[in-house]
């Protein structure tokens, strides 16, 4: 009886040895293909001409359940009806990756990338500013959306480029 059970058990083992079909991945060497809508690291996006999408409306800050985001918005210099985010900080140590900020943003200025390898030695490295968030957006979303003014007349007054706005080339992730 016991030997029979042992033999049956070994049969399964041998079968799997011969028909070797691994279901695991050798992680750092192989990586999973993540779906498009994966909720990973957050990033700020730009339009195809390099202008920032964010209009500093503060909705993402208001909706975030764990107060990750801090936006300080200001008027675009010399253009009193247009606003932009003068400062934009995220403390990613607290983020729940719930995606509510992305849903709240009226101009789709926030995106969730497929980046997940964000382990750091120093927690303070997870406090990101606007330049860093834009840089993440640049490397994760190479295909940018057309600027809104070309999409619909109602929204043309949101988000236009302004003199002195930093351009993409000068920004690197520090």
């Amino acid at each position: 009886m016991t030997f029979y059970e042992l033999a049956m058990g070994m049969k399964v083992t041998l079968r799997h040895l011969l028909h070797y079909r691994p279901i695991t991945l050798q992680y750092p060497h192989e990586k999973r293909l993540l779906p498009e809508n994966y909720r990973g690291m957050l990033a700020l996006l730009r339009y195809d001409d390099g202008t920032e999408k964010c209009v500093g409306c503060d909705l993402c800050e208001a909706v975030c359940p764990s107060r990750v985001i801090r936006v300080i918005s200001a008027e675009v210099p010399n253009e009193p009806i247009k606003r932009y985010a003068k400062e934009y900080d995220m403390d990613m140590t607290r983020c729940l990756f719930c995606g509510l900020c992305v849903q709240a943003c009226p101009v789709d200025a926030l995106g969730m990338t497929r980046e997940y390898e964000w382990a750091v030695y120093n927690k303070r490295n997870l406090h990101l500013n606007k330049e860093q968030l834009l840089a993440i957006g640049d490397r994760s979303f190479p295909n940018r959306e057309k600027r809104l003014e070309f999409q619909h007349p109602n929204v043309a007054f949101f988000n236009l480029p302004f003199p002195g706005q930093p351009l993409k080339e000068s920004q690197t992730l520090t």
Partner: protein
Amino acid sequence: MHPVLETLQQQFPIIIQSVNEDPQRHELSAQVERGGWGDVAQFLHDDPAMAFDHMTDICSVDYPDDFERFEIIYHFLSLPHGTRIRLKVRVTEDDPSLASICHIWAGANFLEREVFDLMGIRFTGHPDLRRILMPEDYDEGYPLRKDFPAEGKGWRSQMDFIPRLDEPVSEWSADEIPSDQRHQFMAGDSPDESKRTTEMLLNMGPQHPSTHGVLRVVLELDGERVTKAVPDLGYLHRGVEKLAEGLNYMQILPHTDRLDYVCAMTNNYAYVRAVEKLVGITIPERAEYVRTIVAEMQRIVGHLFWLGTQALDIGAMTVFFFTFREREVLLDMFEKLCGARLTLNYFRFGGVDSDLTPEIIASLKEFLNTFSAHIEEYDTLLKENRIWLARTKGVAVISGEDAINFGLTGPSLRGSGVAYDIRKLEPYGMYDKVEWEVPLGKAGDTYDRYWIRVEEMRQSARIIEQCLEQIPEGPIIAEDAKVIPPPKPDVMRDMQSLIHHFIIFTQGFKPPKGETYCATEVPKGELGFFLISDGSPRPYRMKIRSPSFVHMGAFDHMARGYLISDIITIFGTYDIVMGECDR
């Protein structure tokens, strides 16, 4: 008026101060005068016309401006009649005490301790009234009172239990635990002197691989046999209920993912249902189907997780690999559906976040085709496995009456042969449109619960199959401009939508004044959300009735008399998750 309320009023004309039947939500409630609470409770339990044998929950609310400041709210369920009732008792701040009902419903023990811990209500006659979620020597007050700040009193660095570098080194004493504290876990049952000379106290956890989180159990042992087992909870207490009072309804949703983190879908479902019941939203049909499908997928995931880990804890490692292989397939589908694997945040008020794509439906169908063969595979590994039988048959036995008395729900209750499944009793989603059965056990031991969970996976697969056949086309989210954010493409094109979008995301919506309890069958049992709204965009009070917490209340009863090695099985038998237990 409902006959239950009528009888109550006739029986206790003075003690019952008022009764109320909520016509929309079909809920009964009664206000009880504090002095007569013990009698009313006894009557509710004993009278055959009442027969409220199942203690669901105890909640406490603080109204700082009222003369009788605290309200204690009891939820009972009558299994024979299928009615729920809510009873409220008010106590004053000067004398916050109330008669304990532990001797009537054993399940009230832990729940009363929780109310004492978080709100400071003293229950007279309670056998062991100690703090339960907060540390036992916590002396900064009662966290759920409204005058207690949500961020706590003082920040971590000022808490004196955290050592600081600038303070003097503490003296070593000969004995770390003073002798008067040694026996605090040994209260009760005096040892039988004739048989043994010493009794051993064993700490199990909080860091123990098979406690599935951080649970500590203080075992009192006679040789290898457990004579008493006292669970020490609260290591994972994050104060979700307190946090929720400062968040608007939508912001609470991602926090519910983190209650029972292996079954986030069903937590979302339970919470969303409670809010929908409070606000009164009807959900489009397709959304209901999608919800039912994902909830059942989550049930399969939860039971696979249970089966794998329970077998692993007992020593059968292979099962773990097999079940996690299938779990992975389902998690991949969740990932395609909503972009996350565990913390899903998929449900929305009035519907769901994204639609099932044809691709997901195809892979789900393919999964279901092979799934029954996989269940057979687990069966060949376990069903007649002699070690599995020896370690689960007759372990953690609880009789039907005791299980009801302790307030157990879900597979833990059905293992003892009590047919209580919320999906049948109060059907929601599409559960009344599809055919399925509730598996019931006989012996009330771990093996029966194992069998039930495996059978429930088969039934879940059956439900999903039928839902996939019936699912109609249509919208996946209801339209209600005040509560549900308008579709994104409209936001920047239409002024009205833009305004609603801004209002919902900045302030949140305002449900009507009122309160509601909504129970949902999650893989572990009955997960209930009790919400009190004062008309503001944030809940005045949110109480989570978590099955794991109530199940831990029965742990001592079920563990006594077994060997140390069985303790692991007994933990596992409830399918306990500490994130939900400690909240």
